[in-house]
């Protein structure tokens, strides 16, 4: 196995990438930020942002965590000037984390063209400091892994998801932190999950968030069960949930976390992505990338993404490894798929073999190998409005 060399951050965390983020703090600053990034055409200089102007604690918190993520080396914030996001507070937090950061306010920089030029200068100014960050040995017990599925089919639960579950079990034994999510996709599995809780309190929390998810989706009038699931042969929500459940492996569940919450201890965590309180925030996750960003905001270095119908996405900040559940999709979309779990269906391979392939690729990607979506320059980023009661339970 290769030795991972991580980028050492001031707080002691280590990253597997060293990206510079150019961040628009409201949609009005998006164009300027994009022009700054386009000027470089460099996969390590990435565009992210938050469109909303009205304030939202959840979005501010996620943005702070993303800007100080271990895969991030430096940040240029692009503000219009009158949006509600606390740009100075965010800038201070990034500086406090030991990262170089610049704040560009369009209204104070003579508008669009001059701001683009100024932003380019800012990126150039922080580049040397970002590049000189120290690389040190990084071990399995410092890796944080997340998993999601998108475009599942009836084979996801037999091939890709149990293979990811086995990889989770392996990394947990090595002392890594692993995070899985979407209580709405686990409706019907609450008893199985609660049985795996490390204690009674965690078991109760698991049951509570799945009940909340069920209630939330019922009020929205649409759960995660789609027409495509039915066409693919899935009949009940329990059946769909079980397929998704196997991604979590068989280890004990150490806790329930909210997006942006960093587990302090090693272990396996379930992320609650469904807002608290009244149903007024729209769908809990408007797309797969919103979920990926929530996982990354809790520290994930790398995402294991299971897909059956064939997703093409990657993400800004952290690499995404796509594991395809069937050979037909894999053959059609090989350029987008990192691993083919469909081999399990024709007995060329077992979930144990796939788990080995996942482990090897995780280590290689941690060592700098580009995933398919990274090589294709996928750098999606989605952040929307939500509300959570502040979690009083820290792990």
């Amino acid at each position, binding site marked *: 196995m290769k030795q991972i060399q991580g980028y050492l951050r001031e707080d002691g965390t280590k990253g597997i990438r060293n990206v510079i983020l150019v961040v628009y703090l409201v949609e009005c600053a998006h164009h300027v930020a994009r022009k700054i990034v386009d000027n470089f055409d460099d996969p390590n200089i990435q565009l992210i942002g938050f469109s909303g102007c009205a304030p939202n604690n959840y979005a501010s918190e996620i943005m702070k965590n993303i800007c100080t993520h271990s895969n991030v080396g430096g940040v240029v914030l692009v503000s219009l000037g009158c949006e509600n996001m606390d740009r100075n507070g965010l800038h201070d937090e990034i500086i406090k984390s030991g990262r170089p950061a610049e704040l560009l306010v369009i209204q104070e920089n003579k508008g669009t063209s001059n701001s683009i030029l100024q932003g380019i200068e800012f990126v150039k100014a922080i580049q040397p400091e970002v590049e000189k960050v120290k690389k040190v040995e990084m071990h399995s017990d410092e890796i944080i892994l997340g998993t999601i599925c998108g475009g599942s089919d009836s084979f996801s639960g*037999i091939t890709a998801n149990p293979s990811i579950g086995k990889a989770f079990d392996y990394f947990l034994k090595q002392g890594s932190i692993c995070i899985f999510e979407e209580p709405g996709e686990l409706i019907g599995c609450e008893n199985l999950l609660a049985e795996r809780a490390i204690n009674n309190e965690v078991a109760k929390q698991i049951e509570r968030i799945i009940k909340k998810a069920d209630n939330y989706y019922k009020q929205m009038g649409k759960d995660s069960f789609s027409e495509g699931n039915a066409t693919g042969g899935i009949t009940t929500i329990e059946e769909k949930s079980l397929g998704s459940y196997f991604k979590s492996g068989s280890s004990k569940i150490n806790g329930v976390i909210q997006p942006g919450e960093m587990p302090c201890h090693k272990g396996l965590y379930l992320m609650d992505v469904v807002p608290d309180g009244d149903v007024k925030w729209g769908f809990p996750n408007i797309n797969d990338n919103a979920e990926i960003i929530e996982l990354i905001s809790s520290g994930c270095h790398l995402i294991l993404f299971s897909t059956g119908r064939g997703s093409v996405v990657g993400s800004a900040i952290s690499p995404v490894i796509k594991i395809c559940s069937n050979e037909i999709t894999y053959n059609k979309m090989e350029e987008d798929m990192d691993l083919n779990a469909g081999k399990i269906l024709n007995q060329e391979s077992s979930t144990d073999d796939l788990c080995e392939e996942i482990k090897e690729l995780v280590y290689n990607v941690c060592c700098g190998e580009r995933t398919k979506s990274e090589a294709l320059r996928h750098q999606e980023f989605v952040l929307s409005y939500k509300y959570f009661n502040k979690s009083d339970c820290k792990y």
Partner: protein
Amino acid sequence: MPLVNSRIKYTTDMDFINEGFFLIHKKDNVAIALNTLKKNDFINLQTGRVIIQQDIQMGHKFAVKDINEGDKIIKYGYFIGIATDSITAGMHVHFHNLKSDY
């Protein structure tokens, strides 16, 4: 976690004459078609031969044993819903004869 994920593990107890299906767990009373199964195709399980009663699309479920109305449908070794009709081995199992208990 009793899930047996790999077909390979089954080769000792199961007879895969027909390669077109996947029985995930020993307790399951439904299996999954890996490609479209045609009416009158048959598969051999250790428990006996099952004759496919109607065309089954890829990814869809069919009964591997006779199931009574009100019985639990088991897939992955777990409960996925209740039979709303009596189901003969080899029949398609979907919305017309299976409902969620949630």
